[in-house]
């Protein structure tokens, strides 16, 4: 009986599922088509791509947790890539998004002698030892969506976009929505321990200080990616900050809960919500005017590039030198990070075009 599954009854369902929110980076291209869109800077890189990818590789895709639409969309992209390189791929994963729960599956990958593992780390630190063990066992490890703290535990990271862009874009969106008058804003984050969230929040603070004197960040609260708790925190924000003009929630659960709350309250129209959300969940609130815009990237691209990078590594190449996915080349920076592009902004006009 393992920790993971039994965690169910924790007293205050803390951070159990740091659902989607996290970010890896894929190009803004719709669907998972690789050739479309992909306006990424990386695409312009020279063709320093590693050697050809072997056929018949066995690749495991390990999201933070299964049953999450965001990761299912990423898996769809991965399957597309697998079909292209004739690999056999499978998504495995726990029902609860924790590093402890992922360990089980990393072990399965090792025991079942997969050639490659494409993982979104639910916890930047706790899976590091296991991933190193997997590498020792000859498994090619690539991270997507969320990285690990120790970069030697993977070959490359496929990042949806840079923390910088994520942070700045969200500040831009809230600034646009609140208008030139400015005012008080607050952040509704996921778990207090979520590294990526904290990194983005730091960038947002810097950006606010540097370029948006009209916006004043007055509070940061944590909804633990729990819908009820996030909604309550949103409501509490309105209590403690009567002059609040906007909420940024860089997590899909939080932004949906905040939008749902604001849409049903008297604050609709006076308090703006933005953040990182899934088009499918946010559609209703964009259309009813609660949310003017929000953003995300195409999760499909994360899976797509992740599989290609893993394929190169498993075939004996080194994707750190850059790699080719579909018919495009991608560069990789010194930290082994491949960036896909800036986040896609969703508005009432375009939100219907996205199906994840």
């Amino acid at each position, binding site marked *: *009986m*393992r*920790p*993971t*599954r*039994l*965690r*169910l*009854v*924790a*007293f*205050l369902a*803390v*951070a*159990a599922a740091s659902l989607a929110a996290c970010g890896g980076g894929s190009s803004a291209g719709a669907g998972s088509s690789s050739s479309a869109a992909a306006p990424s800077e990386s695409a312009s890189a020279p063709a320093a791509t590693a050697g050809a990818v072997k056929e018949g590789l066995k690749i495991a895709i390990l999201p933070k947790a*299964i*049953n999450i639409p965001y990761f299912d969309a990423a898996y769809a992209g991965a399957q597309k890539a697998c079909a292209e390189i004739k690999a056999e791929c*499978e998504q*495995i*994963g*726990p*029902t609860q998004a*924790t*590093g*402890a729960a992922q*360990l*089980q*599956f990393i*072990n*399965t990958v*090792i*025991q*079942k*002698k997969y050639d490659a593992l494409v993982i979104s780390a639910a*916890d*930047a*630190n*706790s899976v*590091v*030892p*296991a991933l190193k*063990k997997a590498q020792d*066992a000859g498994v090619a490890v690539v991270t997507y969506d969320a990285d690990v*703290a120790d970069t030697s535990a993977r070959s490359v990271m496929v990042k949806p976009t840079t923390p910088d862009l994520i942070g700045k874009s969200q500040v831009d969106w809230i600034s646009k929505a609140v208008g030139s008058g400015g005012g008080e804003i607050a952040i509704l984050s996921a*778990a*207090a*321990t979520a*590294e990526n969230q*904290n990194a983005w929040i730091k960038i947002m603070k810097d950006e606010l200080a540097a370029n948006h004197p009209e916006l004043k960040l007055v509070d940061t609260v*944590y909804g633990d990616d729990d819908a009820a708790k996030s909604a309550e925190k949103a409501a509490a924000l309105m209590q403690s900050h009567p002059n609040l003009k906007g909420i940024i929630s860089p997590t899909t659960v939080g932004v949906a809960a905040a939008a749902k709350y604001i849409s049903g309250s008297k604050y609709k129209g006076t308090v703006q919500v933005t953040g990182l959300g899934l088009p499918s969940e946010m559609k209703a609130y964009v259309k009813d005017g609660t949310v003017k815009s929000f953003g995300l990237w195409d999760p499909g691209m994360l899976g797509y590039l992740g599989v290609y990078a893993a394929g190169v590594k498993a075939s004996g190449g080194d994707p750190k030198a850059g790699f080719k996915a579909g018919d495009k080349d991608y560069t990789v920076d010194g930290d082994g990070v491949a960036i896909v592009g800036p986040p896609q902004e969703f508005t009432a006009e375009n939100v219907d075009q996205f199906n994840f």
Partner: protein
Amino acid sequence: MSRVLSWDRSVFVLLVVTVAVGAVIDPDFAGGSNLGFVLQDIGEIMLIALPMTFLIMTGEIDLSVASTAALAGCVLGWAWQASGSMAVAVLAAVGTGVVCGAVNGFLVTRLGLGSLAVTIGTLGLYRGLCYALLGDTTVADFPAGWTNLGFSSIPGTPLPYVTPLLVVLAVAFGVVLHLTRTGRWVFAVGQSVEAARFAGIPVARLKFRLFVVTGAVAGLAGIVYDLRFASARPDGALGFELAVIASVLFGGVSIFGGVGTMWGVVSAVLFLGSVRSLLQLQGVPGNALTIITGGLLLASVVIPVVAQRWSAFRERRSRVLAAATP
């Protein structure tokens, strides 16, 4: 259930059968590295299950163990950063566990509060203190020498470093429970608190000490957890309390106290770990694993009752038949 096939024996048999079947159908399952993994994976659960067996045997329960472990883990990280000495940090962590256990024990044995209600409260309190201590930070800079203990194997074997700790503690707790005066007392208190008081058994002191030991071992488990995941974080070991309790109950310990064996509990922890690993390797999805866990827990209480009723029914029927025969 006859004495020959008591539940704890059945669990042991199940464990053996599972390992045997697993080895046949999946060669990867019985491999050394998987064995090592399973041992590592059940480490904290097994550790906490040992003292929890004592507590449940006396008719008490401690739901705060996972929060205690997490708090000890956080103190480990905090003390390491503050003092720069792992020895100090380890002492502080175990000490935290002792204090947490003592608080539970005090509330239960001195104030006479129900342990279920008390430890629901301290479950929240201790977890809250984790956040108060570390907030949104994660301590991940433990010295490599220590974190290696957490996840690498003893050289030359597939066994993780936690193995000797588990073996020593399991044997120690088993010996205490089954061979010593303290163990006899634990059984006695579980069978009848009142008779135990009349027999001069210091019931309150015994229970208090059990809470303290449970806290201390939970603190130890918090250290093991931190080292295994190379980090200290406020949401560590989340939800472990039910895993531990489910294991103990599945191992044949009665929730009403007074009945149980240490080897039944150890078998149960190993069995549940093996089953999970085996199913995982067979690609059974996580959703099904949840159902299986709950199903096994239910089975552990349903089967003995149904078996008992069945044998009572057969006995009655054979008596009736015998009476009907001239």
